[in-house]
């Protein structure tokens, strides 16, 4: 059976995504859990970037989720500032896992850069770039696009209504 380069990349990234997603669920420490989510979002972005050739979505994923929503999450976690008694730590060899993860990631990068894989990663690119995406949004999905603006407006309106001091 021929192993496709795409498959290698996919399974590697998918494994990382799964691992970090499990981390979000199983790590009791709220900040570490949030960081795991951050890792998950970033790896998903890499998946978009490398496999689907959708750089725009990848970057927007990082800007919106990692940059904006995660900051909100951390903000809330830190404002609540849970003391150590409110969650329980689990004994996991984090050092080992992190070290292995970093080593794997590094080896993989070398692998990609050095080998013939490099050529394989680009064909998808351009298939779903910014231009193609915007073309889709402003023709076929224009209604959905406009609706999203209404939806966000409603959310903002609701937040303002709930945040007002007087009724």
């Amino acid at each position, binding site marked *: 059976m021929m192993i496709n380069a795409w498959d290698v990349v996919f399974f590697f990234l998918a494994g990382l995504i799964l691992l970090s997603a499990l981390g979000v669920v199983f790590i009791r420490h709220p900040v570490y859990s949030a960081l795991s989510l951050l890792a998950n979002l970033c790896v998903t972005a890499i998946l978009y970037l490398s496999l689907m050739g959708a750089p725009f979505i990848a970057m927007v994923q990082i800007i919106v989720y990692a940059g904006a929503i995660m900051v909100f999450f951390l903000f809330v976690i830190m404002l609540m500032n849970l003391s150590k008694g409110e969650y329980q730590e689990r004994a996991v060899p984090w050092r080992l896992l992190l070290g292995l993860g970093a080593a794997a990631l590094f080896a993989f990068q070398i692998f990609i850069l050095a080998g013939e894989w490099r050529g394989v990663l680009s064909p998808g690119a351009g298939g779903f770039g910014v231009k193609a995406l915007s073309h889709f949004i402003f023709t076929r999905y224009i209604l959905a696009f406009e609706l999203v603006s209404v939806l966000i407006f409603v959310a903002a309106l609701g937040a303002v209504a709930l945040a*007002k001091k007087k*009724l």
Partner: protein
Amino acid sequence: MNVTVPMPNLSLVVPEILMVILACGLLLVDLFIPKDRKRVVGYIALAGVVVVGVVTAAFWGKMAQPATTFSGTFVLDRFALFFKEVFLFTTGITILISLKYLEIEKVSLGEYYALMLFCTLGMMIMVSGADLIVIYLGIETMALSVYVLAGFMKFDHKCTEAALKYFLLGVFISGILLYGITLIYAATGSTQLAQVAAVIKEKGLAKNPLLVLAMFMLAAGLGLEIAMAPFHFWAPDVYEGAPTPITAFISVAPKAAAFAALVRIFYHGIQLLEPQWQILLWIICAVTMTIGNVTALMQQNVKRMLAYSSVAHAGYILLGVLAANQVGVQGIAFYFFAYAFMNMGAFGLVIYLRRENIVGDDIDDFKGLAQTHPLLAVIMVVFLLSLAGIPPTAGFVGKFLLFAAAIKAGFYWLVALAALNSVVALFYYFRIAKAMYMQSPEPLPQLSPGRGLVLALVVVGVFTLFFGIYPQPLMSLAKDTAHTFMMFLS
């Protein structure tokens, strides 16, 4: 570089555009209206809803054939139009019964009405969506507004708790719904209902496990707003905690919208999975009816009782979906109008009973109403009769259509169960009647009538009776709605 963007046919979305303009305009107008005269905002909203209702009705004649726009993501047909009228009617009545209520609760934020209009907009999109993404966005627009409205009285702990519960469950289920949509996309490569159906047919995917899973998830996602088992747990808490006009609104409009979306997705998108969804809906239908009615028996709080009764009604309406025939669709459409009349009426009465420091939602608050306010008691009895499905009320006609459809489709056992449930329902509805007529009144503070509330009660009361005695016009309109699904229903 220049990309020409084709202009979609905007004439079909005129009601929605009007709604957006109205809601945004309302927010602007609200800024210039002093705090003690906020009811003006309500009047403007009401007038706007009436205008949109008239405009929407004007489409009826032209829409004998379904028309799509926005590259097939938006469809306008009589089914959608009929449901849009249901939403607009419900919104109008809700605004009428809100006017006084908000003054009692000292709520003077114009955003209340704007959110209600946005909610209506979301539902109008939901019933017209021919693409799962559009439907989803409609659901979210509706749901976000409803979450905020349910928790509008934020200094009331019960209200906040209710809204938070609703919100948390809502976002969770929304995720499931979205996952279902993703699975459909994964299996068929499209989110547009017509294309999904075509691909399923072409590739013979009717037994595809991905699609079956997606079907479960879609049913779950819509099931929350429908309040069907096992996603009905939020209903009693939210109905009890939310401001009463909003409770009335939630109990009718989002339920109708979710049902309409369910019908469209199941009949138009995944109709080839009928054997699978038939089993699913059969079970849900039976469980929902029974849970709703049996639990309602034990309630002391009228809002909670009506919540469980609305769960039970969701079960009855599922009969119509399950039947998958013309009478079924007709029954669903008719039933929602009837349901809007009677449920809004019943909740309106609870608002009427709002006294100083008393919400008016305890059964004891109804004690001796027949002696102190005989007319009010009579109207309440009309609503209760209709809810129980006893002639000569609109509720009876609706239930009759649904049962007839199910019998025609051969679901005898289910109809028997539904009939049995109706008998159970009689019992708890008549507990209220008993409190009103057989018990003597307690000396309590003045009730809180308001012109808007009285008008609303009279309108829904008259409609309940009128369409119970002479259902023909509404029935023929409801019959036309089935036209869209002719291909499937034949």
